[in-house]
């Protein structure tokens, strides 16, 4: 024994620890073409080839691979369940520079195919705004949507329904298999009147969800619907959302119409690993509710992540790309990603300080469920070497960074509007319009231009323009630079 290994062999081959020998072979064959010293001689990067060779020499041999896996396991770096994060770097090596430089790491967190993790039952709470403005068709649609959700649940799923105005009312306490007729008659009695104090709704919804007791065994989710601004309890809402996230409960915050605060709903979503949605018309509510709950039914667990940075390295931003672009709210390096189905991409934008040539530990990462059943960990090394210019940026990174770039433009514009910087915000919207046009989003581009025109005079966007731009820019990508 006494073998010397590096913890990133799987990453170097761009495969997961679950890869078959065939997958390792084909990854090596693909990479060796890019890495071959003959090809890279001009860039003096033979060491990249050497480290690829080193990884391959170990992983190609099932016996050495087994010993390597044991070595990883002893370091806590081997995933015990079929769950992994693939890591892609914007550049495999950077030149030493006398000034800080940018570097991007893209994580794709996924459950391994052929190793299905069984889905868990739902623990769901619908929290419905019943302030006066919801009166009429809006409330009818919301209740109809709720009934649909109830009827489509599986036997093992639990549901609660809470309404709120100036206070919260539990209409359906948390239970499995509600009697649909009884539930319908209770829902029919719901009236819309009074103000909007959302924190009461969230708090009461949380109390219902917590009744489930063992939250680790279920997918815990709150579907929060509002059509208006809440009264002065914004901070409390976000605090509750953070508390929810820490307990493995995510919130989908749904805004109906245009009179609510998108930044608050987004903050609630971020703090709990959920998402926020814009529904222009109440008729879409049943469909939206169904889609959200449908997506949860295949979900496996609520996830969290952790990033630890190497010395001197700074994280400029962390963004998730699925199911929509958003900034990931981090506290002490930890963040919530909510229920997990399919895969989630995360883009980390890093600032690398001036470093000497060599291999530098850049980032330790960890993703797992809150219970600790599923966990994947790894380390990312940064190679600094002379003469490595001209490496091709992977198109996955360009696409992700493009989406994030649009998101950040929009984010900056909002901040400038909030700060009363009308001229700057207007210019920012014009920049946004230009990039939207390039991305083929003509309608959104036109809207951004129109809003930019009126912004200097009004100091704000139109209510509808605000929502359409905020949510429209999160679902599309910037065109990556032309490939040649």
């Amino acid at each position, binding site marked *: 024994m006494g073998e010397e290994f590096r913890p990133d062999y799987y990453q170097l081959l761009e495969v997961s620890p679950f890869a078959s020998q065939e997958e390792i072979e084909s990854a090596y064959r693909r990479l060796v073409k890019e890495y071959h010293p*003959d*090809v*890279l*001689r*001009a*860039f003096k990067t033979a060491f990249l080839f050497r480290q690829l060779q080193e990884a391959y020499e170990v992983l190609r041999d099932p016996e050495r691979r087994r010993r390597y896996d044991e070595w990883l396991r002893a370091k806590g770096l081997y995933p015990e369940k079929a769950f992994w994060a693939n890591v892609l770097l*914007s*550049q495999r090596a*950077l030149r030493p*520079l006398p*000034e*800080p*430089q*940018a*570097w*991007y790491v893209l994580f794709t967190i996924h459950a391994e195919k052929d190793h299905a993790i069984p889905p868990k039952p739902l623990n769901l709470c619908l929290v419905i705004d019943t302030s006066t403005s919801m009166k009429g068709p809006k409330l009818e649609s919301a209740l109809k949507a709720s009934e649909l959700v109830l009827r489509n649940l599986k036997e093992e799923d639990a549901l609660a329904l809470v309404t709120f105005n100036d206070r919260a009312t539990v209409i359906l306490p948390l239970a499995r298999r509600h009697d649909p007729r009884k539930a319908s008659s209770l829902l029919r009695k719901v009236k819309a009147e009074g103000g909007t104090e959302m924190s009461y709704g969230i708090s009461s919804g949380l109390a219902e969800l917590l009744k489930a007791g063992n939250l680790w065994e279920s997918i815990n989710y709150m579907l929060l619907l509002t059509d208006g601004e809440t009264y002065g309890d914004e901070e409390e809402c976000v605090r509750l959302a953070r508390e929810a996230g820490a307990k493995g409960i995510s919130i989908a915050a749904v805004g109906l119409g245009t009179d609510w605060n998108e930044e608050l709903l987004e903050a609630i979503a971020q703090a709990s690993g959920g998402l926020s949605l814009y529904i222009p018309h109440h008729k879409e509510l049943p469909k939206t509710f169904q889609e959200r709950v449908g997506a949860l039914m295949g979900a496996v667990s609520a996830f969290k992540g952790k990033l630890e940075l190497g010395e001197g390295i700074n994280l400029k931003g962390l963004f998730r790309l699925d199911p929509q672009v958003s900034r990931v709210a981090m506290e002490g390096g930890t963040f919530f990603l909510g229920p997990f189905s399919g895969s989630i991409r995360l883009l980390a934008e890093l*600032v690398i300080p001036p470093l000497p040539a060599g291999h530098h530990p850049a980032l330790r990462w960890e993703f797992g469920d809150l219970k600790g059943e599923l966990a994947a960990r790894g380390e990312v090394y940064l190679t600094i070497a002379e003469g490595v*210019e*001209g*490496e*091709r*940026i992977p198109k996955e*990174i*360009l696409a992700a*960074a*493009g989406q*994030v*770039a*649009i998101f*950040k*433009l929009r984010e900056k514009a909002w901040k400038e509007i909030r700060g009363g910087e009308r001229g700057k915000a207007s210019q920012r919207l014009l*920049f*946004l319009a*230009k*990039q939207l046009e390039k991305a083929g989003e003509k309608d959104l581009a036109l809207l951004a231009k129109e809003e930019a025109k009126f912004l200097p005079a009004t100091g704000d966007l139109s209510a509808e323009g605000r929502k359409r731009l905020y949510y429209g820019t999160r679902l599309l990508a*910037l*065109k*990556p*630079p*032309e*490939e*040649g």
Partner: protein
Amino acid sequence: MIRCPACGAENLPNSLFCEECGEPLIHEEKLMVKLVSLTEGWKIEMPLEGEVIIGRADPATGFKPHLDLSDKGGVEKGVSRRHLRLFRQGNKVYVEDLGSSNGSFINNRRLLPFSPEPLASGDEVRLGGEVLKIYLEG
């Protein structure tokens, strides 16, 4: 720092998009490669995306190079099936002999098999008895 060509803002080196205006900062220009046969007189132009393999199609294995010299006197001139490839790395173009039977030459200098060398626009490249002048157009 690097300057954004669209808005002039300063960005960190290796930034992919401008922080200020969202403009892409890494430009990989479309590159066209023009090949002129000095022996046969034909001309052909194609985009250089990834790589261009020059050789002869092999119906037996289904192999098809990007540029097939079978009907351009390739057999007579001793062009191998996989003779030569052009490829891009960053902003540079390279030429590599793929272990051809009759060898490849750049400006009358023999290329070692499987050893890529940089190619400049206007270089003369010989594949067996076929002489090509290669132009790169951004």
